[in-house]
């Protein structure tokens, strides 16, 4: 890999031993994937995936301290994934004990490290950092050093920024050095689609289900999706951005997609059209029956498959302001139709702290509260990543949460019926 004189000097120790190690890490990473050079990180902010002070991650915190002590600090301020604990989310005595006394005992000290390294602000804890209220929205063509998979796929696809599907810790290395290795989704060639996905459904496919089907089929490849114009239009707006946020998260978690193109909608698809499709691209046709097949094949990992759900999570990735408003109205209508006053299953909507604050300024906040739904900034994944929560019958309409935990997936319509009308 070609290094500039400055980069080579850093690698040789001109900025100290710690910075040399940072550069060595990035050089090895780039060489593994055939990078030809380093390119500057050009986004205003970074975003880190590691938000949780899990006790088991002691070595990560030690590494972070090495960076701080070596004055190898991030050149960018950054946002970070959601906090793992929120006292407003239902948890029993034992769960609280495990969360606070065993698992997340390093949360406070880790957040202090994040501040020293360059955290944007106290509210910068969300997986959906690109939402307007959060303020970490990269521009088209900017080079990023992010790792959160749902944010990476959104930034690449919807915003037209350029970022590889990095691992945690590698994200901050790029931000400290100010450079990342040039390969994969940073290159024009790496952004070409090797799959054409033809959507031939009779009704608008649910984002989380369509993304899941595509992710499972194309895995880490880039799909060019056609047939969505009648539902999503040709201009990005709040509604279809939210759709693409959930769609992308499902492609990234059910497969390993880092970039997708939607014909006539996403920036590069609008600009370059079919020339984005690589020669010999494979074809995948999706109709309603295919989506039904995919949904019916999800394993149910509950011990008692007929258990009464004890918790419902909606908002993985975090909900946008408009989604919160829409869900509030849908829950109200569902309760009215069923004659119930409050949701019948403890239900948590999750969103970014900054979005939560804005939502709380609207009339919908009181209306949502009246339905019994809890609004939280928590990461549902982190809530469920322990043996106790793993045994709970939790339901969700998030395909990411389904994939990484024991949560059971239902469509949005089915979830709404379950929480407002009841039934197993």
């Amino acid at each position: 890999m070609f290094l500039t004189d400055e980069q080579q000097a850093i690698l040789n120790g001109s900025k100290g031993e710690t910075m040399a190690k940072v550069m060595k890490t990035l050089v090895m990473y780039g060489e593994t994937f055939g990078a030809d050079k380093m390119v500057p990180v050009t986004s205003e902010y970074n975003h880190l995936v590691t938000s949780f002070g899990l006790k088991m991650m002691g070595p990560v915190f030690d590494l972070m301290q090495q960076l701080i002590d070596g004055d190898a600090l991030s050149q960018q301020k950054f946002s970070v994934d959601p906090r793992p604990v929120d006292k407003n989310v239902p948890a029993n005595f034992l769960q609280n004990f495990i969360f606070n006394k065993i698992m997340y005992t390093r949360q406070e000290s880790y957040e202090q490290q994040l501040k020293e390294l360059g955290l944007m602000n106290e509210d910068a804890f969300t997986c959906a950092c690109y939402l307007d209220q959060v303020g970490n929205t990269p521009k088209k063509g900017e080079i990023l050093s992010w790792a959160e998979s749902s944010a990476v796929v959104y930034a690449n696809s919807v915003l037209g920024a350029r970022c590889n599907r990095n691992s945690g810790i590698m994200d901050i290395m790029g931000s400290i050095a100010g450079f990342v290795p040039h390969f994969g989704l940073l290159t024009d060639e790496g952004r070409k689609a090797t799959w054409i996905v033809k959507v031939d459904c009779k009704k608008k496919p649910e984002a989380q289900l369509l993304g899941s089907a595509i992710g499972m089929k194309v895995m880490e490849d880039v799909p060019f999706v056609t047939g969505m114009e009648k539902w999503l239009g040709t201009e990005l707006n709040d509604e279809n951005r939210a759709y693409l946020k959930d769609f992308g998260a499902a492609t990234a978690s059910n497969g390993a997609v880092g970039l997708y193109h939607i014909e006539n909608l996403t920036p590069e698809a609008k600009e370059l059209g079919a020339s984005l499709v690589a020669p010999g691209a494979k074809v995948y046709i999706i109709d309603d029956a295919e989506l039904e097949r995919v949904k019916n094949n999800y394993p149910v990992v509950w011990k008692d498959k007929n258990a009464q759900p004890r918790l419902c999570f909606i908002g993985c990735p975090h909900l946008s302001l408009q989604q919160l408003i829409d869900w509030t109205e849908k829950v109200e209508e569902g309760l009215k139709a069923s004659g119930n006053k409050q949701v019948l299953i403890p239900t948590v909507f999750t969103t970014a702290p900054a979005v939560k604050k804005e939502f709380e300024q609207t009339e919908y906040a009181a209306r949502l509260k009246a339905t019994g739904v809890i609004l939280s900034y928590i990461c549902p994944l982190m809530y469920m990543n322990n043996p106790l929560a793993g045994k709970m019958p939790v339901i969700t309409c998030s395909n990411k949460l389904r994939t990484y935990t024991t949560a059971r997936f239902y469509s949005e319509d089915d979830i709404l019926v379950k929480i407002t009308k009841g039934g197993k």
Partner: protein
Amino acid sequence: MREFKGRVVAPGTVSAPALVSHGGLNTLASFQKALQFGDKKATCGDQNNPDLYGKVMKDKALCLPQTIGSTTGGLVLYCACAMDRRPACMLFSKPIDSLAAAGSILASVWLDGVNMPVIDSLGEEFLEFVQDGMMISVGTDGRIIVE
């Protein structure tokens, strides 16, 4: 006895019994329980991986296609290395994925005395041939011997 040739991602030599995952290894799901609750043998906790679930991963020659799952995967692997709950080596049939690469590179650069050779691109035939318990010797040039 069969010899396979791959690409060296992290150099080193080692001999260890094979542990084979035919599906992708979900690093977080596989290691989290062991790291969180003090299991020094690193027993695999991923219920969705029938090949590995409940088996000891520490000191084994872990044979797999790629790693999958959360992008915390690299730092989880780094932690497994730092806490001495790492496999003896990692042998990939496919080109290594970015998460496993990150974990092994971070361990190689930031941890002292960690020897976990990583070889990728060993080919599908490798994963079809190797079985749990076979002895694997890893050389410095990307050659491995399975017996």
